[in-house]
């Protein structure tokens, strides 16, 4: 049980931080500009906001891939230690 949870810890942290911060931005927008929650969230995911936004999205995706890779590395290390 504990081992299973340990396995994907970096990816889990990544998704937690990513979604948490996005949610936070949406909530702050909602609070300040008196918009509905749906409005704020849809603003976050409007892809055509800025034709160059692709750069940052690509970087964030690279971060996700990196986190999966480092999870794999951790698991491998652990296995070699166990055996």
């Amino acid at each position, binding site marked *: 049980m504990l081992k299973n949870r340990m396995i994907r810890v970096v990816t889990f942290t990544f998704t937690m931080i990513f979604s948490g911060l996005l949610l936070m931005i949406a909530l702050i927008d909602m609070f300040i500009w008196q918009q509905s929650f749906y409005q704020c969230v849809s603003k976050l995911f409007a892809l*055509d*906001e*800025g034709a160059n936004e692709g750069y940052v999205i690509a970087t964030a995706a690279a971060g996700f891939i990196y986190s999966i890779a480092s999870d794999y590395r951790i698991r491998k290390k652990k296995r070699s230690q166990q055996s």
Partner: protein
Amino acid sequence: MKKRLLFLLCAASVILTGCWDSIELNDIAIVTGMAIDPGKEKKYRLTVGYVNPAQYSKQNPAHGAPVSIMTLEGNSLPEISAKMNVGVSRRLIFSHTRALYINEKVAKEDGVSHFLDSLERSPQFRNDFNILITKNNSASDFAMINDPVERVPSLKVQKSIKSLLKSWGGDPRVRLTDFIDAIIAEGRSPVASTVVIDGDPEKGQNAESNMEVKAPARIMLDGLAVFKKDKLIGYLSLDDTRNYLWTQKLESTMISIPCEEDGDKNNPLYFDIVITNNKSEMKTYYKGNQPQLELNIFSEASINSMQCQKDLSSKEIYTELEKRSDKQIKNMITETIKKVQNDFGVDIFGFGEALNRQHYKKAKKVLGHWNEEFSRADVDVNVKIALRRSGTRNKSFISELPKKDVED
């Protein structure tokens, strides 16, 4: 053995020298501009402008004309250009041509395809020169107008187009292959830039004209020439050219937009936005039997000047200005498209190509008579401007003035 080696060496000395068709550098003349006019006796009158290399020597520049021109008549371009040496001492090299001026009469009456073929076929011409339609004056005049900063006239035109595209966008960035592609394409009609001479062309030809602060003649860009197949049918203004470019690929531009829709008519107040990043997307489809042209534009912009009393540190003002800009730009572009539909009835925007990509089956049926379909189509332009920032000041100092002072 020795004999054989000797023979080999002799043979090598003959073969390895290479450069069969070598030309010495001082035997060539580099052509920078070509101008095509209708001929008096024969079909065309070709004028070439080639640089005078002595002018560009660093040590002791000669005081002469920076370029020299030569004019001949003939029935085809290759013929004339081969014959040019009746008057030119050196062999002409065309691979560095910067501008091709076409007299509007040639473009209107004969069409341009007759000589474009030879340009496309020739190994010397590259795909990097501008095709320019000359208005009013004969095309040969354009190859001769001096410019004090850029000494080669055709180079001046090309650089000016390049700079204009970066700062405002008034050139359709059409090159030879684009032009030819557009002639044969069913869903798009070709366009080209037009140039005019501002001033007296006779005076502008003198090398002495470079001494004057205010150039007596200047080549100016003047919007778009619209073609139907390969024949010129009309012109669009410079503003329309920018709007045309907006539908294609706009690098950057600056627009002034009135602050209020129905403000003071005598003394309207404006704010300027500079577009820094632009994305446009074309959609063509049929609603029943009615063709629909949809254009979605998304641009990022920042505010460059502000004449009215608006506090740019608040988000509401940004949203308001965004809406004003959306509306203004939407109207501008719609107007240009409608003008092209009504006045010319040819699809210079490439909506037909979009239809071909998006609805291939329908396109197959209608592309044969696409220009008629285009002129009766409904236009729907959606513009979304995102204002990002406002330079190094947020509020304008104008907004600090008491309100009454401004109104008076």
